[in-house]
């Protein structure tokens, strides 16, 4: 079972259903029962059950993690498995995809799940004026055909091998067709837990559905209660006084406190979230690749991880593809911190000295201003004088990011390479925060298009590795580090050995995968 190649899964997904049904061996030991109480940051008073609007952890855990399901699911080990889709198949050009849906699935109101639900739920995202974050994914689908009660065909404008992966996105939840308004106002999905009460920005309580298609392999709690605690200290208090069993986004400054308490433990995984310093490659002096290389060698990445993340992260070499991605080039040759080399590249660019402004604000990421000052002092020996400009946090994303030639920013990362690249590195896309385009690297843009439609996993690995190397050497974004997802768990819970690293709290699926000890 574990010998399955990603390619096999990717292409047909035939085994996906089997994989999901068999369950991971660890889950067999999980005990049913109890009430999970989780203190979660990332809640808002405007929260609701419309997955198109979800942006933060609380609703992600409540929606994808408990009440609703998507067609596919990223397992804890990073592989893709079927959720409401049992299997899928692509045409050789990766343009036409056929999904076989799971049978015998019902929504919490008793309605049976079928092809109509899939089509209507996907169409929600492309309705006129839709502000769904998943609009780009769904608008690439030109045709949705119902082949049978439990079979749908999706035709894409251009081939995309990642489609099954993209359909696991937490915005693409399945709603009952014809009752979507009601489902959104009450929270009616096919998930393991049905809504008992929901007070936006305050609290969500769910109850395990009696007979669920996931059977005994998932959903071990009888009841779950998510409490919105946006303040980090209050979250910590709630955990330490035993009022919740787990919390997300631990303030790493208080790590020692948690370590001193034998009843709780820290759980951390490195994901794709990364902190960046984008340069506009169409603005002097950053249009010169040698200047960019000088800056790449003038940053002390280890120091950033140690002092900004307090060790809770890992070094990145200017690519946004992280450990939670399939084709993460983990053994890529690193860029050392080397002021001499930086000075050398500066000379190549015909300069002795480089004076530049770096715009930063706490809005970019926690510690962005400190990180910029570290950068300032590490680049100084190379003759690079960085002037840190502290920008107001209000309106940072509208007034500074994408506008100032050199700034600080952050990305939560994406589940697939293509999604990440086509969000921020494809020529001309709106969030391309380094204005990285064909004139910078024709090869990169070419690979981006070719890899997208390639179904052969080995070839894709090759291409994505090359793209990561291009970004490392020439790219316009300095990415010094990937941040960890740091959460804390009480010893009253039993947590599987492998925990998802795409999102915090086991890919937001703690209610599904964890159990009482």
């Amino acid at each position, binding site marked *: 079972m574990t010998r399955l190649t990603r390619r096999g899964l990717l292409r047909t997904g035939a085994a996906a259903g089997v994989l999901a049904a068999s369950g991971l061996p660890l889950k067999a030991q999980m005990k049913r029962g109890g009430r999970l109480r989780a*203190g979660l940051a990332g809640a808002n008073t405007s929260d609701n059950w419309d997955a198109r609007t979800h942006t933060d952890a609380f609703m992600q855990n409540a929606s994808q993690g408990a009440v609703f399901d998507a067609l596919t699911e990223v397992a804890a080990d990073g592989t893709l498995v079927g959720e409401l889709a049992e299997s899928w198949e692509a045409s050789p050009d990766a343009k036409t995809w056929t999904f076989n849906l799971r049978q015998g699935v019902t929504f919490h109101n008793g309605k049976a799940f079928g092809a109509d639900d899939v089509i209507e739920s996907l169409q929600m995202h492309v*309705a006129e*004026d839709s502000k769904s974050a998943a609009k780009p994914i769904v608008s690439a689908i030109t045709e949705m055909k119902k082949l049978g009660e439990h079979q749908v065909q999706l035709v894409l404008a251009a081939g995309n091998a990642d489609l099954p992966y993209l359909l696991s996105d937490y915005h693409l939840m399945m709603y009952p067709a014809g009752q979507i308004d009601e489902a959104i106002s009450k929270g009616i999905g096919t998930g393991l837990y049905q809504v008992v009460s929901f007070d936006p*920005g305050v*609290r969500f309580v769910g109850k395990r559905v009696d007979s669920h298609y996931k059977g005994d392999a998932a959903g071990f709690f009888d009841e779950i209660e998510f409490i919105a605690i946006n303040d980090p200290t*209050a979250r910590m*208090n709630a955990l330490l*006084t035993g009022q919740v069993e787990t919390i997300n986004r631990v303030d790493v400054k208080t790590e020692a406190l948690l370590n001193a308490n034998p009843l709780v433990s820290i759980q951390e995984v490195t994901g794709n979230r990364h902190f960046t310093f984008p340069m506009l490659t169409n603005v002097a002096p950053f249009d010169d690749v040698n200047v960019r290389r000088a800056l790449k060698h003038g940053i002390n990445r280890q120091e950033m991880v140690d002092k900004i993340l307090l060790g809770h992260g890992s070094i990145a070499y200017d690519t946004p593809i992280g450990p939670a991605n399939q084709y993460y080039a983990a053994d890529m040759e690193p860029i050392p911190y080397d002021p001499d080399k930086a000075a050398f590249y500066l000379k190549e660019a015909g300069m002795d000295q480089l004076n530049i402004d770096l715009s930063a604000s706490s809005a970019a990421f926690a510690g962005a201003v400190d990180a910029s000052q570290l950068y300032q002092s590490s680049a100084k020996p190379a003759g690079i004088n960085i002037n840190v400009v502290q920008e107001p946090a*209000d309106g940072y994303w*509208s007034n500074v990011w994408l506008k100032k030639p050199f700034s600080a920013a952050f990305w939560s990362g994406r589940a697939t390479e293509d999604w990440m690249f086509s969000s921020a590195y494809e020529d001309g896309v709106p969030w391309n925060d380094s204005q990285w385009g064909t004139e910078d690297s024709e090869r990169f843009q070419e690979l981006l298009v070719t890899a997208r439609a390639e179904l052969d996993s080995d070839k894709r690995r090759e291409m994505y590795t090359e793209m990561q190397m291009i970004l490392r050497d020439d790219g316009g974004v300095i990415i010094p580090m990937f941040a960890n997802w740091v959460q804390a768990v009480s010893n009253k819970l039993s947590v599987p050995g492998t925990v998802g690293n795409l999102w915090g709290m086991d890919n937001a699926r703690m209610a599904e995968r964890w159990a009482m000890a």
Partner: protein
Amino acid sequence: MTCHVPGVLKIVLQRLALGLVTLFVVSIVIFVAVNALPGDFAQVILGQGATPEAVAAIRRDLALDEPLVTRYVGWLGAILTGDLGTSFAQLNFQSSLGGGEMKTVASQIAPRFANTIFLAGVTAAIAVPVAVALGVLAALYRGSVFDRFTNIFTLSSVSSPEFFLAYMLILFLAVLNPMLPSLSNIYDGMAFSERLRATMLPALTLTLIVLAQMMRMTRAAIINLLASPYIEMARLKGISPMRVIVRHALPNALAPIINVIALNLAYLITGVVVVEVVFVYPGIGQLFVDAVKIRDIPVVQACCLIFAAAYILLNLTADILSILSNPRLRHPK
């Protein structure tokens, strides 16, 4: 006293009218101030994803692209018919939902405000009697160890930041001696006793904060009167010091005490944001801060009106009570 009611009634009506003018001015100030903040709802809600088209689409949907004056007049018109409007966040999501039920600002605020009133009520029920009792005792035994201790204790508690007191109480009453829960996330359908227990820590924190002013005002007002001739007379009559204070001094000292109590009650409604955050108490302060953060003007306006109204009404109540408690004010020359 009946013959004086019209006089008091006139004052009440006058003050209410003035209060309305104040509310009007407050609403203009808040409206201008929130709009003067950098970034608007569209930019904040889109954050990193704020492409010019997306921002324009949201502004169009929410009529944020109309001039300030038009928007204000529209809002004022709705308010005058009793409609607090719908929050931007709701409207924004609604336009992508197409139909379904819409939560109005009023229905968003009502449960939160009820929670805030509950917390303020519990706090007042503890703080006011304790403060007045301590004040009376301190006045009675002024200069004694008890007086000094009470003064030092209440002054140091009022001088400490709220979050510090909150964490101290959590440390002593929730962590070291687990008697009370550190999370006060009360919700609908919670039994009253449970709710009271969950509210206890924030209520105690607030009590420590409001205690000093009320207690010291009680003490000062009473001591002030102790030098007056009629107190001297009462003493000469030979009645006990306690009786002198409670029966003779306290009624005459009520006016300033009531004023201070009213001010502190207003603070309990409008100023408890920090305490709400620390204890995760779902009150109106948290909602207000959220709304300011995302520049959700309808919610901010509604909260401000409530806050302003609370101040105006409590001050009015305090004034009326002091008039009623003071014969000289009841019978103006």
